[in-house]
C-alpha cells in the first residue's frame, strides 16, 4: 500500500462572478514511503492547491486523499489538524517563520501541536543545519539561507512520515538552492520521510529520480492551458 494515494481528487472555487472553476482534477497519484518526488507545473497549475489538499488544509469537493490508507478528505477538521501536527512536515516557499519567535522556538512550534516539544531534538536539528550559534536569533536577524534552514528544521521537527515542500528553493540563489535541496533530501532520507517537492525549476526537478508533471495529471489544468514540455505523461521518467 502506498504511503499517499490520491484518487479522483476534485477541488473547485467560486469566482467573484459566481462561476465555478475547477482548479484540481487529479485521477490518480501515488507516493511510496520514503520516496522522493518532484511535482512540476506551470504557475496556476494547482500545485499549491494540491499540497494544501494533501496536508488537509483544504478539503476537496470529491475524491480521496489516502495517507496510509486513511482518507483525509473524510476526516473532521480537527483530525486533519492532528494529522498535520503528527505526520506531516511542510516547507513553504516564503518559509513562513514566525517573526516574534527565535529560531529555536520556531522549530519547537513544529512539535508542540504534535508529539510535544523536545528542545534537545530541536537544538540537534538546528545544529546539524549549521545554526548552533543562531538558536536565539529571530528570523529578521538571520540571512535568507539561514531562514530556509530553520524552516527545514521546523518541517522535520515532529519526525514526519511525509514532507511537502512548496518551491523550497524559490527564494534562494542557485548555490544556496542546491545546498538547501541537498539538506532537504538528505534529512528526509535519514529520517525515513517521504518527500514531495513542488517546483517549476528544472534544475531542482532534475535532481529527483521521479518527476511528475501536474499539467499532465491535473485534468483541470490540462483543459485550461497547453501541456508543459517538462516531464512525461504518466509522471514516470523512463
Amino acid at each position, binding site marked *: 500500500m502506498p504511503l499517499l494515494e490520491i484518487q479522483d481528487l476534485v477541488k473547485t472555487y467560486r469566482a467573484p462572478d459566481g462561476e465555478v472553476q475547477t482548479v484540481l482534477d487529479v485521477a490518480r497519484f501515488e507516493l511510496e514511503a520514503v520516496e522522493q518526488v518532484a511535482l512540476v507545473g506551470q504557475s496556476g497549475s494547482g500545485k499549491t*492547491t494540491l499540497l*494544501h489538499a494533501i*496536508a488537509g*488544509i*483544504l478539503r476537496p469537493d470529491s475524491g480521496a486523499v489516502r495517507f496510509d490508507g486513511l482518507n483525509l478528505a473524510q476526516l473532521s*477538521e*480537527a483530525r486533519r*489538524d*492532528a*494529522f*498535520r*501536527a*503528527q505526520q*506531516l512536515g*511542510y516547507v*513553504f516557499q*516564503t518559509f*513562513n517563520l*514566525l*517573526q*516574534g*519567535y527565535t529560531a529555536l*522556538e520556531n522549530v*519547537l*512550534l*513544529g512539535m*508542540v*501541536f*504534535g508529539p*510535544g*516539544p523536545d528542545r534537545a531534538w530541536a537544538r540537534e536539528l538546528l545544529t546539524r543545519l549549521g545554526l548552533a550559534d543562531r538558536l536565539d536569533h529571530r528570523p529578521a536577524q538571520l540571512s535568507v539561507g539561514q531562514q530556509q534552514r530553520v524552516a527545514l528544521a*521546523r518541517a522535520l521537527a*515532529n519526525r514526519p512520515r511525509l514532507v511537502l515542500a512548496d518551491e523550497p528553493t524559490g527564494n534562494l540563489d542557485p548555490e544556496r538552492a542546491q545546498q538547501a535541496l541537498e539538506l532537504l533530501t538528505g534529512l528526509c532520507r535519514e529520517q525515513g520521510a517521504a518527500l514531495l517537492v513542488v517546483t517549476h525549476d528544472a534544475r531542482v526537478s532534475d535532481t529527483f529520480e521521479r518527476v511528475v508533471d501536474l499539467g499532465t495529471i491535473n485534468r483541470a489544468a490540462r483543459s485550461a492551458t497547453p501541456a508543459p514540455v517538462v516531464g512525461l505523461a504518466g509522471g514516470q521518467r523512463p
Partner: protein
Amino acid sequence: MKALIGLSLIVRRSLRQHALSTIVTVFSSAIAIGLVMGVFHLNAQTRQAFLLDGFGADAVLGARGSKLQLVLNSVFHLETSPGNLPWSIYAEMRQNPRVELAIPYAVGDNYRGYRIVGTTNELFDRFEFARGAKLALQSGGVFFDPALREAVVGSVVAERTDLGLGAIFQPRHGIAAAPSGAEIVHPEEYQVVGVLEPTGTPLDRVVFIPLEGIFRMEGHELRGTGESFRPVAGESIPDEHKEVSAVLLKFRGGPMTGRFFDTQINLQGKQATLAFPLAQVLLEIFQKLGWMVQVLRVVSYLVVVVAAASILAALYNTMNERRREFAILRALGARRRTVSSAIVLESSAIAAMGALLGLGVYAAIFSAAAFVVRRETGVVLDVFAFHPSLVIAPAAMVVLGALAGILPALKAYATDVASNLVPTS
C-alpha cells in the same frame, strides 16, 4: 499539557511582540483594578472605624445642639465644641445607678494644633477605647496626677511634636492652631509625664491634662451659673461654676437604658443633647456622603470597563496583521480552538498582570488615603486588612479580560488558512 505549552509559548511571544500595547493595557487594567479595590476597601474600613465598633462608650452627652457635631467633637476631636454643659448635669449622670461610666471632657486649648482635653483619670483606668483595650503608657510614663500640671500625650502628638516624655509646654488658647503671631499662649507650664501606646484612634492626637487644669487656665472663664467666674489660685472652685464640654457615657442595662435617657434628655429636656446610639449618629455622615461613594464606585466601574475595552481594542487591532501567524500555526497543526484560545488566554493574561499590578496601585491609593485620614482624624486604616474586594475585583478583572478577548478570538477562529499562508505586502 502539550496544548498548554503551545498556548503558553504563543501567548508569551505575542505579549512580547506587542510589548507597547501590552504595557499600556496592563497599566490601564492595574489602575482600574487598584481604584476599585481602593474605593471599596476604604469605604468599608472607614465605615468600620467611624462607626465605633467596640468603642467603650454608648453615648455622648453635650450642650444642646447637633448630635453629629457633638460626636465629632468629643469622639473624633474634630469640629468645634457645640458649647458647654453645667457641671450639675454631669454630676447627676455620674451618680445615676443606670450609668456605669461618665467621663467628662473639657476642651478649649491646643498645642501646635493638637487638641488639649481636660479629663479625669477614669479615662485611663476604666475606659476601653476598643473592645477589651484600655489606654496604656509607653515605657517610663505615668498617668497624670489630677492635682498637678501634668499631661499625657497621644502617640501621634509625641511623634509629630516635641512633646516627648519630660517635655514642658504651654497650652495655646483655642481648639485649633491659630495663625502664627495670633496665638494666645497660656502662661501655665505643663510637663509630659506619659506617652500613650498607639491606639489607631483619634485619641492618639490628643493631649490630656487634668480637668481642673482647663478650669484654671489663665484667661478661661467658667459660666456654669450663667455668669462669668474666674477661679482663684489656691481656692477650690464651687461646682455650680464648673462646666464640661461633653461627657462620654457607658450605660448599665444595654440599649434600653440608652433609649430611656434619649427620651429623657432629648425629648423631655432642654438643656442637653444625648448622642445615642453613637453608630446611628455617625451613620449620618455616611448617608450624607453616600452619593460621593456611589459616584466613586461608578467612576471606578467605568475605568474598569474602559480598561477591558482597551484590551479588546489592542487585541482586535492586531488581528489583521496576525492572520498570517494564525494561518502558519494552523498549518503546523494547531486547531482553530487552540488559536482562538491563545487569544482569550492572552487577554486574560493581560488582565491578570493588570490585576497583580493593581494590588500595588491599590496599596498606593489606600496608603495615601490612610495617611490623610490618620493625619486628619487619628483613625488608622490597615492596608493589609482583608476585604472581599481584594479577591473579587482581580478575579472579575481576569474574567472581563477573558470576555474582552472573545471577539478577537472569534476573528482568529475564522481565519482561513490557505488564503493567509502567502505573505501580504
